[in-house]
């Protein structure tokens, strides 16, 4: 089992406000790592450090190191190429103001792919994977922003898969999705695990329990505990606060 991502003593400040206070963790290749914790605990910040979109925020300082396949992400010159290796699904579904087809074809096109037949294949594959194809195959030309919230969320998942990423980061994807669709996407994630490494940030602790091989619990910018999901969700995880959070004693 190889480490896909190695994070070492990662500290992030927004101006004077600390967001991450020295976090170290590894993500193993082809696992689903669940990340749970209440709001403001630094989960989203962690994801944004990995694909280096956090540095676009004004006034942010980042210390420590994030290594992808053993290479420090900050030493990678082609930051756009790096971002293409990491699929990112944001909490609120953002259909770009383009057609459904163009939404999914966006990333391949930015890499210079123009061949319509190849794009068609990618669009269909990604929409299939995101469990959206059957609902939209007859109206690929209509605006992505006109889909319902749950459909838009699946569209963003399809989009994130369009450049065949090595890592898929999902940031609370099920906020805008109904339970049935959530289940369908969870099935998709289980099968995608064979092809890629998945980081699943979620507010639904049961979702982490269902899907994750290992689970990390974060609180106020600290990593409280990371362990096999069975251990975290057992009656005696190492930290008392983990037990309290999972069992609804606070938060």
């Amino acid at each position, binding site marked *: 089992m190889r480490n896909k991502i190695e994070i070492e003593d990662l500290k992030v400040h927004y101006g004077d406000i600390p967001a991450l206070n020295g976090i170290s963790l590894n993500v193993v290749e082809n696992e689903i790592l669940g990340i749970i914790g209440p709001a403001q605990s630094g989960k989203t910040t962690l994801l944004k450090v990995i*694909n280096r*979109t956090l540095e*676009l925020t*004004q006034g942010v300082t980042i210390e420590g190191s994030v290594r992808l396949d053993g290479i420090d992400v900050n030493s990678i010159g082609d930051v*756009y*190429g*790096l*971002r*293409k290796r*990491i699929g*990112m699904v*944001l909490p*609120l579904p*953002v259909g*770009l*103001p*383009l057609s459904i087809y163009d939404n999914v074809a*966006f*990333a391949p*096109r*930015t*890499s210079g792919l123009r061949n319509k037949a190849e794009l068609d294949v990618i669009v269909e594959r990604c929409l299939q994977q995101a469990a959206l194809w059957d609902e939209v195959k007859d109206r690929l030309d209509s605006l992505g922003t006109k889909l319902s919230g749950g459909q838009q969320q699946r569209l*963003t998942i399809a*989009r*994130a898969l*369009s*450049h065949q990423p090595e890592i898929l980061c999902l940031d609370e994807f099920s906020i805008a999705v109904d339970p049935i669709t959530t289940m369908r996407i969870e099935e998709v994630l289980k099968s995608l695990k064979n092809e890629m490494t998945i980081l699943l940030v979620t507010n639904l602790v049961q979702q982490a329990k269902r899907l994750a091989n290992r689970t990390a619990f974060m609180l106020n910018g600290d990593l409280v505990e990371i362990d096999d999901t069975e251990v975290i969700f057992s009656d005696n995880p190492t930290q008392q606060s983990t037990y309290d959070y999972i069992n609804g004693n606070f938060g």
Partner: protein
Amino acid sequence: MRIQPNKATNRPFSETVIELFIRLCGISSILFVFGIFFFVFKEGASFLFNGLNLSEFLSSEEWYPTSLNNKRYGTLALILGTFGVTSLAMLMAVPFGLGAAIFVSEFCSPKLRETFKIVIEFLAAIPSVVWGFIGLTLMNQLIIQVFNAPIGLTMLNGSIMLALMSVPIIVSIAEDSLKAVPDSYREAAEALGATKWQVIYRVLLPAAKNGLLAAVLLGAARSIGETMAVLMATGHSVNIPTSPLSWIRTLTATIAAELGEVARGGEHYQVLFIIGILLFTITFIVNLIADLVIKGIRQG
């Protein structure tokens, strides 16, 4: 059975008053537009329907309203003057204005952006007569020297002044509409590995296209309606423009220059009002096209 809300008992009195006031504000703006149109139309109506040769008015280039024995009212040269100077101005103002808006909205640091916005707003506040003065003196000399022209008061001079006047409008409206594009679009596109420029032309410009179009059209409307600067900078000479160095006269400048000199209610006076109706019609058509284009974009 349908249940009707009972307005009299359900709504506080203040709500009714406020609604009435807002309703009046809305209706009054419509009334003012119609009032202006009605007045301009009334002043020119009797000659428009009785005496004026409309096809000659639109297609003849002979504008001799003060000739003693053969008065001719042909506005073709004036129409072409207005269109020529406006199009040339837009040719300069649109790329500069949109480029500046993209720079201010997407590339500037917040501090520099504030400075830029203040300078741009200041530029928009310069009275048109000052631009006319600059055209008459500075730009006149410049054009004479650069193009070796006999005189610098030309369509080019006027259009540069108009471009300088419409750029601030285009920049501020275009910048607003770019800023109105949600940051989540930028974040989503950046997370997909798009470069800054790809984010701009693949996501921001399509998302903001209605606002950008409005910016361009308002800039154009300002150019068409502008009077004083073109009166001073274009030579004010009735002439069909053949090159940017032609001297020309516009519809608006003609009204401004001649209305004070004519006998009230006379033929010439009425013709100037008919030119006003013509300007009205042109701006109406421009706005209509804009509406249709925007609707087309929304559906497409």
